């Protein structure tokens, strides 16, 4: 098969991978913030629920979670198509890791900031959203960037539940054409580029968010 044709088939797969990342990333962010906050501030019974979710998804492997959602949940009457199962599994998995990022970043805000907010009579909502969160957010960006790259890498797992993503197409093409070296080399490079673009994006975001927080010495 000519090289150009292989590339175009693989790029179509890359679009599917992109789509999964675009859907799972917001889900992961919502889970990370939602359960991260519950883990920190919720009353006891709800807090324990959050801990169970976090420990369960961090303690077992992503592929098992994916299989569980795709193969087992239909028996309970929740049938998903492969795409939904993939997005949900990856979103919940990465989200669980994200809760720890949120927790760590909130803890990294100096205690004096909290005390000052109390002393200045800010309400607890104002304290969270106007004082603590803007500072914590900057600290979350680098680890969230790493998690986003982990998510891109984890999307390759959905090929095992028959979603025609980049990895799936690579394997199918390799079985068909036997031009394995070129195909897998191209795929590895595509994933690498994707990860690099994300890494650069998050670095830019970090710079944007840290503006005005008096970080990194006096202005450039």
């Amino acid at each position, binding site marked *: 098969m000519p090289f150009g044709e292989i590339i175009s088939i693989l790029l179509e797969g890359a679009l599917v991978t992109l789509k999964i990342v675009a859907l799972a990333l917001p889900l992961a962010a919502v889970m990370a913030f939602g359960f991260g906050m519950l883990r920190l501030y919720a009353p006891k019974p709800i807090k324990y629920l959050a801990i169970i979710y976090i420990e369960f998804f961090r303690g077992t*492997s*992503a592929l098992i979670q994916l299989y569980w959602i795709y193969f087992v949940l239909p028996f309970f009457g929740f049938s998903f198509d492969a795409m939904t199962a993939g997005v949900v599994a990856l979103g919940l998995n990465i989200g669980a890791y994200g809760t720890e990022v949120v927790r760590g970043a909130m803890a990294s805000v100096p205690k004096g900031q909290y005390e000052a907010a109390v002393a200045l009579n800010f309400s607890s909502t104002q304290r969270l959203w106007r004082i603590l969160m803007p500072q914590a957010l900057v600290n979350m960006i680098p680890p969230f960037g790493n998690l986003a790259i982990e998510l891109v*890498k984890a999307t390759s*797992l959905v090929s095992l539940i028959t979603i025609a993503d980049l990895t799936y197409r690579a394997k199918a093409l390799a079985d068909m054409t036997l031009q394995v070296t070129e195909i897998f080399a191209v795929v590895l490079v595509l994933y690498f580029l994707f990860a690099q673009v994300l890494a650069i994006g998050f670095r830019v975001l970090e710079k944007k968010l840290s503006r005005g927080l008096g970080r990194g010495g006096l202005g450039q």
Partner: protein
Amino acid sequence: MNGFDWDWQFTFEVMPTILEAAKVTLLATLLGSCLAIVVGLSFALLRRSGFFLVRSITYWIVEFVRSTPLLVQIFFLYYVMPEFGISMSPLLTGVLALGLHYGAYLSEVFRSGIDGVEKGQWEASRALNLSVFDTYKDIVLPQALRPMIPATGNYIIAMFKETPQLSAITLLEMLQVAKIIGSENFRYLEPFTLVGVLYLLFSLIAAYGIHCVERRFPKEGITLK
């Protein structure tokens, strides 16, 4: 199809088969982590090389391996290596892939561990006229070891949790066996849940083990003689 009820009898029926497969999973993790430590240390030392070219090539190799999916790397080793005349069993391929992938991660841990050793120790070794090899072996690595333990342990647990991906190259580890059992009996609930619980159990035990190792480990490091 009634899969809602948990069937204990079926659970106990499949338990021995899955536990048998757990041995393969643990073996792959064990060999993989040995290889990862060797690879990680080599990369970490190469990153400290005096030659700019060696440093930057190592940096990009580590970056590349870290930011591409393990599954694709497994496929790459399994399908591409035979093109170059190297055929490996699924287990060997898996161990190699896990070792390389996590070796890249560990190299960063080892690098920061080595960087964490005080500058005075290096200067003292220089003053005592120790060779580079002896400096690393007797002075730097023994002190760098303790701070590396938690992160290294976490990556080994992470590696353990990624072994199910080896099912994609037909290695009969826990998840693959569970899937086969599931498709034979049309019951996925028990085998998959059992595997999930076993993973959770093993990771918790391993996490506790690492915690103990770290606590027991002498603060001043150990001699590597």
